[in-house]
């Protein structure tokens, strides 16, 4: 889930006060019975459709006689009427013949595409609750995993509902690998102290924007349309794209730099080398605002463009060109995406080191302190050190969870952190999951498919609740429960400046129930089977999902928060302070975030935000980096990384090879050994460019039973969506004796994908292959299962980063973590004709 940081001057709550937009007015003033398409009503629904780009978009459902007769973007939503291809396929998904219509039970063996027979809801709930009761009684409640796993639910009500279930019954989360972005923050937080993401209007001030491992033109259509793209087309920003293939963003760039997957930190140090040797660094800034420059310089001087060219496959003259451009163009911004951090592994820091090395360029050139400069980090959750932050998830989660307490006691301890839950799932240590209830797609999205397969086959019962069953459900579910689509339920999806909310446009289709209803039924049935002697309300206090949403958005605490903003003169919060759920659910633009503090004025690294980190109170606009140690300086040398990790992590940004090293002894500049690794010499000489998102799929929601996209319109529109396909450079294909349309096997040290359709493309860097990401389980067969920071002692893994400071922190002293699933890109492969 990523940010959507819109300029608040366009807030539609204000627009609503003035009168609807022209388009909305036309829509209701049309030729037949008052509404287009003969609709009785037009209902805004939050799009959690297609694939959850991470942004909150609103669609219009035109409803006639209880059915949706037309569907398009809502002009008053912050998407301004637009929907991406995944969103636009929403109605097709809602009406899909492949929707799960009624509860089902598996009839064939696991591990292959599932076959299921229809059963009744009663039988389904009996089966599920019997299995859970058995697990609780025989092995303890932690052996039940309940909640979302891996794939985001879209409707965040699910996550909170899952949190309530887990509190009631002491279930585990079974969440598996954790967010793919979570270690992306380690580097920036170390260097600069925060992980700022640009506001919508920030890039309008940039003369130069570098997209580093970031494909916003494709992955963030709204951000590109309203922010980055506008900076380019309307404000003249020059664009540089640094990528392991020519992506959609690369095509929009003025300069494209190719980079071997996982070698971004080398490239960053080579740019530092150029800047320092040519005297382009901002020495005054460095002297005043940084720590460790001399040691950093010593490292950088080793990384000449000529040496680095051999490693990263980036032409030396282009390295020089971009380095000079960045140092001499002010203001310049760097947006770091998730392209590079996924190349780290169990034994490689290459992933998080990318952000560390790249962010060093910012203080090196003094690219701080004015709008349009600095860092923009592509990440999902904000508020590291008081910068622009997300709807306060902690507070909103706690609204329902505070209303319940555990229904029974247990001594069994929960698996802790992403490493803990993964150990339970894959190693069954210290216990294994017996029952797994999810709507997610763990088996379709983690590495080491064989491990995931074994884990799921060992469970007593796997239950999938969803509208279209993804690969995990298809291959491993025993029971399928038909869930409502976003048009048939209350939806709450928080983002940065607002939460998207909507009410159902139509009744549940077929025998579908919304996920909260499903959870409620299971909870009450379980409580009865466990003889807890409680009434329905005592178990689950909310009769409907609407009541649950009201708990989140209309409770006294949040009403007080809205009121505080009103008292500050921010009138747009006034209607929300009333706590009227019907009003709230009808707002196409959503609910404005009462917890933010004037985001449109925020400029990072100003002392006034960090007085609780030691910043001077008398000079509010002084530059202050909220880094570890509280001296306000950017850290070229971050000693805390070494001490917090008990000596494992380096204090300086020393580049390293990805998990599968190309060289015999890792980084050849440091080791002095330029011999290629045995892996390469044994024929694994292609580098896989993993996780390359497509317009038709990001996070495998609406993935169908065969592992491909649920939408047939998208399968028709994209060759890569029609069957598992890889992209190869034509020169490599010729060398392999492979033609467009042939079938190949892609094999890594960790597994292989067979039956892959070949598509030749000059957007592919020679000696790389773009495997079929988003076709499950294909992608997972190529990569290992890996989490960052696994080399660290368990006692320190979760506490590498400094405590959160800044105005929105609670002043705690708890260090935090940045580990998550990695190694989804950069492995070495063989590619050969089947």
């Amino acid at each position: 889930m990523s940010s959507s940081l819109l300029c608040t001057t366009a807030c539609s709550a204000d627009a609503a006060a003035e009168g609807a937009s022209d388009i909305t007015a036309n829509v209701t003033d049309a030729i037949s019975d008052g509404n287009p398409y003969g609709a009785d009503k037009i209902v805004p629904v939050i799009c959690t459709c297609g694939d959850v780009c991470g942004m909150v978009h609103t669609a219009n459902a035109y409803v006639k006689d209880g059915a949706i007769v037309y569907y398009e973007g809502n002009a008053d939503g912050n998407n301004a009427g637009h929907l991406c291809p995944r969103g636009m396929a929403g109605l097709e998904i809602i009406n899909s013949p492949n929707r799960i219509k009624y509860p089902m039970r598996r009839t064939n063996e696991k591990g292959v595409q599932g076959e299921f027979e229809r059963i009744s809801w009663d039988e389904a709930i009996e089966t599920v609750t019997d299995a859970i009761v058995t697990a609780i009684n025989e092995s303890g409640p932690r052996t039940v995993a309940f909640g979302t796993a891996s794939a985001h639910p879209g409707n965040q009500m699910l996550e909170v509902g899952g949190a309530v279930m887990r509190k009631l019954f002491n279930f585990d989360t079974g969440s598996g690998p954790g967010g793919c972005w979570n270690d992306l923050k380690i580097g920036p937080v170390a260097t600069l102290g925060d992980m700022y993401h640009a506001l919508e209007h920030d890039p309008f001030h940039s003369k130069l924007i570098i997209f580093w491992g970031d494909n916003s033109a494709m992955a963030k259509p709204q951000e590109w349309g309203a922010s980055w793209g506008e900076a380019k087309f309307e404000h003249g920003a020059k664009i540089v794209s640094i990528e392991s293939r020519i992506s959609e963003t690369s095509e929009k760039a003025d300069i494209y730099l190719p980079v071997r997957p996982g070698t971004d930190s080398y490239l960053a140090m080579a740019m530092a080398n150029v800047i320092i040797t040519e005297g382009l660094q901002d020495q005054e800034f460095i002297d005043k605002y940084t720590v460790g420059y001399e040691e950093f310089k010593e490292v950088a001087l080793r990384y000449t463009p000529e040496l680095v060219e051999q490693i990263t496959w980036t032409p030396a003259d282009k390295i020089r060109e971009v380095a000079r451009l960045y140092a001499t163009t002010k203001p310049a911004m760097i947006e770091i995406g998730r392209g590079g951090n996924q190349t780290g592994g169990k034994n490689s820091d290459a992933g998080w080191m990318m952000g560390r090395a790249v962010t060093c360029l910012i203080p090196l050139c003094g690219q701080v302190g004015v709008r349009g400069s600095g860092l923009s980090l592509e990440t999902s959750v904000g508020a590291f050190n008081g910068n622009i932050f997300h709807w306060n998830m902690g507070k909103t989660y706690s609204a329902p969870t505070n209303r319940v307490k555990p229904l029974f006691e247990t001594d069994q301890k929960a698996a802790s952190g992403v490493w803990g839950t993964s150990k339970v799932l894959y190693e069954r240590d210290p216990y294994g999951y017996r029952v797994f209830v999810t709507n997610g797609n763990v088996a379709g999205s983690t590495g080491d498919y064989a491990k995931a397969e074994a884990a799921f086959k060992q469970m007593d019962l796997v239950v999938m609740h969803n509208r279209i069953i993804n690969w995990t459900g298809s291959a491993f579910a025993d029971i399928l429960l038909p869930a409502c689509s976003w048009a048939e339920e209350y939806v709450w999806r928080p983002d940065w400046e607002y939460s998207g909310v909507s009410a159902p446009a139509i009744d549940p289709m077929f025998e579908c129930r919304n996920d909260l209803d499903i959870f409620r039924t299971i909870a009450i049935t379980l409580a009865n089977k466990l003889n807890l002697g409680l009434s329905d309300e005592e178990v689950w206090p909310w009769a409907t999902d609407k009541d649950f949403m009201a708990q989140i958005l209309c409770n006294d605490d949040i009403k007080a928060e809205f009121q505080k903003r009103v008292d500050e003169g921010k009138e747009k919060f006034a209607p929300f302070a009333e706590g009227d759920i019907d009003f709230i659910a009808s707002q196409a633009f959503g609910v404005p975030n009462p917890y933010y503090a004037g985001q449109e004025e925020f400029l990072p690294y100003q002392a006034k935000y960090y007085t609780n980190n030691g910043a001077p109170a008398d000079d509010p606009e002084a530059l202050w980096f909220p880094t570890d140690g509280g001296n306000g300086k950017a850290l070229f040398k971050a000693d805390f990384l070494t001490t917090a990790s008990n000596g494992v992590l380096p204090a300086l940004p020393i580049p390293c090879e990805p998990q599968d090293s190309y060289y015999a002894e890792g980084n050849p500049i440091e080791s002095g050994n330029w011999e290629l690794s045995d892996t390469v010499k044994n024929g694994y000489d292609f580098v896989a460019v993993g996780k390359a998102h497509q317009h038709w799929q990001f996070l495998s929601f609406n993935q169908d039973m065969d592992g491909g996209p649920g939408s047939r319109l998208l399968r028709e529109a994209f060759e890569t969506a029609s069957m598992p396909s890889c992209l190869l450079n034509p020169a490599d294909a010729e060398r392999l004796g492979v033609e467009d349309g042939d079938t190949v096997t892609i094999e890594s040290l960790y597994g292989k994908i067979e039956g892959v359709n070949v598509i030749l493309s000059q957007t592919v860097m020679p000696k790389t292959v773009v495997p079929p990401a988003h076709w499950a389980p294909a992608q997972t067969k190529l990569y290992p299962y890996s989490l960052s920071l696994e080399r660290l002692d368990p006692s320190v893994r979760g506490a590498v980063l400094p405590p959160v400071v800044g105005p929105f922190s609670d002043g705690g002293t708890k260090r935090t973590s940045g580990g998550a699933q990695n190694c989804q890109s950069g492995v070495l492969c063989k590619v050969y004709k089947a």
Partner: protein
Amino acid sequence: MTQWGFLVDERKCTGCKACEVACKQRNKLEPGGPRLRRVQVTESGEFPDTKVVRFSMSCMHCADPACMKVCPANAITKDEDGAVIAHRDKCIGCHYCFFACPFGVPQYREDDGTMIKCDLCADRRTMGLDPACVHTCFYGALKAGPLNELSEMSQGTAQPFTSDTQPSVVTIGHED
């Protein structure tokens, strides 16, 4: 009659195909059948100097449409906005329009033996709404309206798409 058409800004298009999907959806067309808007993608050059060009095309709504000239059933007309309309109730499915069209626009509908093509969202036009493709595009790569207004909107940077039939499409960033 003020001739309507499309502005296609190839600088902005990322090939996302939302316009294709929106069009299929508005026309209630099944996957596998006619696809009235198609984004043509072509690559040229060699890595790393590859150029990718995308052109989102439905019907060109030509000022002098070849299809209208050849239709033996008089099933093709131009409406008051200059949009070229293929009338299903008159169509005999002979494919002459497809053969005549320099852009291969009309497509055959298997289910009822008639040809179908973009009608510039005729019903939406009467409601003052943008065509479905234009409405959905996040990138601002598609616009529809009177051609002279589209040219003005693009501040003269839009170039007409050339052909004998005088297509009512202007492009930005198009290279022949």
